[in-house]
């Protein structure tokens, strides 16, 4: 064919580490199904809670990283005037399920380089009655041209293709996915901010309303309004403020990995996991919990494979082998994940990070993972056409390990 450059299959492994930059003040603005407020309201309340949690003043915040889909026509800059903050570092990260990891990576380097001292990383979105349908129609050029006119099933249809292909290729069953959903619901029952409050049985999961086969009701998240946030600052500042903190051992990020795969069965983590673990000085067996980005249970299974916990295609066997609740052999989504906590737009990209920080600073709202030292938060998303373009992950640890 022609001059097409081959994708780079490995990272250089020369990234700097994250010593002396830490994460504090994990907060949640409780989710509601529908709100008449704009996204700005949720951003503002996230900021207020960050200040309360950290005992800082608004003037102490000199960096802002914002992940949101429903701010239009504003972007992050509009919020500076709206909220009355003056910052010397600003980022707008509308990357859905990956915005938490991506915002984290930017903010860490900013503080490390001295470009900012305290960066607020906020994921927030509102949800009006018609928000979801409107956002689907204008999500991306490719979605508008080549996906939405085909049944308008939204991501449910896109992931139905993927789930069906994965099941056929690797022998996953609906019971395998159901196990993930049931376990996450169990975890959610211990989390006060979860949207879902009732136990879910496997029978209910299997017999639920058909959305786009094989996807049924409990494979889908519930879109809602809310916010998640944390602060990034130097270790010295955190200790001076007396704030408990979590450490970042390693991160990775990759966009449009494997563009020639006919359909998505793997994400960019395959390219980055070796560097991720070696930079952290860890192996998969060292990880105590995984906060996957669970827009659909098949993606949790794929992330488990791609992050090295088992081989590609062995996801079903892995799930069958383990118990996935907070007290189990392989805890996944300890606050319920977005499948049970709800998907508040871009806040869902922060959900795993915020829960990880809580688990690793003993500031749990959900049930505690016993003796948790290391956790992985995963980012994924942005199905602009037929596959999630973004992938990312962060390995976090306790302060004193």
């Amino acid at each position, binding site marked *: *064919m*022609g*001059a*097409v450059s081959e994708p780079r299959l490995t990272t250089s492994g020369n990234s700097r580490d994250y010593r002396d930059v830490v994460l504090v003040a994990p907060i949640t603005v409780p989710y509601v199904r529908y709100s008449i407020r704009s996204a700005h309201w949720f951003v503002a309340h996230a900021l207020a809670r960050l200040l309360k949690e950290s005992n800082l003043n608004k003037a102490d915040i000199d960096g802002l990283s914002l992940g949101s889909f429903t701010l239009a026509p504003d972007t992050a800059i509009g919020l500076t005037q709206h909220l009355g903050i003056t910052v010397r570092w600003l980022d707008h990260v509308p990357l859905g399920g990956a915005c938490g990891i991506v915002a984290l990576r930017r903010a860490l380097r900013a503080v490390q380089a001295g470009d900012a001292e305290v960066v607020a990383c906020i994921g927030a979105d509102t949800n009006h009655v018609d928000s*979801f*349908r409107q956002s*689907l*129609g*204008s999500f991306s*050029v*490719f979605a*508008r*041209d*080549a*996906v*939405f*006119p*085909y*049944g*308008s*099933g*939204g991501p*449910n*249809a896109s992931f*139905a*293709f*993927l789930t*069906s*292909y994965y099941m*056929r290729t690797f022998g996953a069953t609906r019971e395998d996915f159901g196990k993930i959903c049931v376990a996450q619901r169990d975890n959610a029952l211990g989390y006060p901010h979860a949207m879902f409050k009732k136990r879910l049985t496997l029978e209910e999961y299997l017999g639920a*309303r*058909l*959305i*786009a*086969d*094989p*996807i049924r009701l409990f494979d889908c998240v519930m879109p809602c309004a809310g916010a998640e946030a944390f602060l990034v600052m130097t270790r010295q500042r955190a200790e001076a403020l007396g704030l408990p903190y979590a450490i970042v051992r390693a991160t990775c990020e990759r966009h449009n990995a494997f*563009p020639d795969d*006919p*359909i998505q069965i793997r994400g960019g983590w395959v390219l980055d996991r070796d560097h991720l673990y070696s930079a952290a000085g860890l192996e998969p067996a060292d990880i105590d919990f995984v906060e996957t980005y669970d827009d659909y249970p098949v993606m949790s299974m794929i992330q488990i494979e791609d992050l090295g916990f088992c081989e590609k295609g062995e996801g079903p066997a892995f799930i069958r082998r383990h118990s996935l609740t907070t007290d189990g052999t392989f805890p996944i989504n300890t606050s319920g994940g977005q499948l049970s906590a709800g998907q508040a737009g871009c806040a869902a990209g922060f959900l795993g990070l915020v829960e990880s920080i809580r688990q690793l600073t003993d500031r749990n709202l959900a049930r505690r993972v016993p003796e948790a030292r290391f956790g992985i938060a995963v980012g994924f998303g942005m199905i602009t*056409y*037929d596959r999630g373009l973004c992938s990312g992950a962060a390995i976090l640890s306790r302060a004193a390990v």
Partner: protein
Amino acid sequence: MIPPLLRPKRKNPILRTRLPLLPPSSRSRAALGLTAAAALGRFELQVCGSCGIVQYPPREVCHGCLSGALHWREQSGSGELISTTTVHLSQDPYFRERVPWRLGMVRLDVGPTVIVHLHVGCAPVPSRVRVGACLDKSGQGVLMAFPIDEVPNMADDTQLREMTCDPKFRKVLVTDGKTDVGQAIVRGLIAAGADLVWVGYAEPWKKIPGFAALAALPQVALLPLDLSDSRSVKEMAGEIGGKVDILINSAEVHRAQGIASRSGIEAARAEMDINYFGLLRLAQEFGPVMRSRAADGQSSATAWVNLLSIYALCNYPSHGTFSASKAAALSLSQCLRAEMRAGGVRVINVFPGPIDDEWNQTLPPPKLTPEALAKAIVNALKDGVEDIYPGDVAQEWLARWEESPKTLEREVSV
């Protein structure tokens, strides 16, 4: 096995008529290239002129080498069906009314993975399929996967029928069924399964050979209709407009004259009065009611066909005033198309070359027979395309015009 379409039951007159909705119609300019090709019945994708990579979804530059030299090229559409789903919950009101809706994901042999509407005759995954392009109900190009081999009742797939204008079980108005072309169109529609054909005719005292036999066919209902008479059009629209599913405007006045070859404007005015103003009268009286019936059950209002002429694109000076009247009709039909799209009714323009009739008597062959023209029109309805150029002369004119309109202008003016 695709169940064959059955004749629909009579409509319950006290029930409200379902109003037409449209599938999402927003497209980028690059993506409209797919629509433009589908309007002509072709499946085309962008191919990079530098490195040859086939692109999908449509875009501005090649995703391989960044070249902007992307050219739309016809595709065979062959590929492998790698995944399917059926949507039961849709975010869009049009699809909401029509779920469950079958979709597929196809890996084309030429490279891209495409999301498609799935014809019910396709074999389960994994299987070979042929992807084609159709115009959906909002008149935008979409891809559909078809089985490799013909299966019985292919056209009756309910999803495909949303995109086509099949005359089967429908009622059709042919505005002039008296001419040879009109009579051939009527017979073609009946052969294609139309339930009822209103045959419009003006000047009842003029007896034309073949017309009496046509009028005796069981599917035919004669309809006095004079497109030069607003009152006549209004009255007939009042009488039958609410039942017309397909309107074929075959009425025309054709004189073989230019400007200098005849003094006075009387004949040219007669051409404009039927060819242009006749279309306008019809559109005003029949358009709104057809638009409102575009989702009215299985035999909904679905298409409006204009018999134009290849001379609408480039004036043929020895038939100069006729050409001009057809050019005016072409422009107006584009206005009509925009207005009818809002209801999901397809406007189909037919651009034949010279027809083998009395006004083209002195022209040498090749000339289009009325039967060939009628067949092309029926096929256009079955395929749901927008513009057809039937016959060798029309095809050649089109190729020359597309390459260089100014050169063609010179070639036809002696």
